[in-house]
């Protein structure tokens, strides 16, 4: 399982999950991680519930890579 976290200057955090699991499991894993951070005293709040990546979904940060495209779902 790989968790990719993008930290922006504004303090916005984006957590991407990839691994051998379904969306529900990935969402639960993310929630558990956020709760652990809060328990450790990090003032983190969810601003957008876990979503699967779609081309026309809510905006989020993309790594700038040549040839990267959205996956149509």
């Amino acid at each position, binding site marked *: 399982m790989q968790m990719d976290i993008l930290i922006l200057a504004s303090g916005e955090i984006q957590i991407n999950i*990839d691994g051998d699991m379904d969306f529900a499991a990935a969402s639960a894993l993310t929630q558990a991680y956020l709760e652990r951070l809060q328990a*450790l005293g990090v003032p983190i709040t969810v601003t957008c519930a876990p979503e*699967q990546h779609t081309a026309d979904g809510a905006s989020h940060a993309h790594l*700038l890579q040549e040839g990267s495209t959205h996956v149509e779902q």
Partner: protein
Amino acid sequence: MPCNLAISITKAAIEGEYLRGLLTDTLVERTLRALLNTSANPLGRLLEEEPASFDTSTGPDVFTLHHEAQGLRCRIGGYYGIDLIIAAGVVTVTTTSAQQAAPAAAWLALVQTALNRVARMALASQLAAALPNAQATSTEVAVEESGVRQMATRLTLTL
């Protein structure tokens, strides 16, 4: 991972005050010294190229650091130099002549960018510590969101 491989994407926010609070005086001073002690950096050359703007007659030290009530003050260039003041992670600059406007703006941008990056790196360390069994790597990346390009810290945790 490219976002088209992500199973789930979640957005959250860390309070800005908390993020800036990760910039301890030690980290700020260390960052400034790293920037100012590098003779190869553009600002080091700036000091050499504009002797009229900076008084280097005080000796080999072209910058000083002082901890004051309003923050950390970094004087660059001696008596007629410029002041960078860093308080709560925010950089402000004052000058002693109009000729210093351009280099002062360059210093401010460079230092603020560096401190922002250091703050993100400090936060990445905290986020990694929440999963102590994960292999953690951290890099600086360029991202685009809603048409706006910016730099970000990418923390990868592998279990």
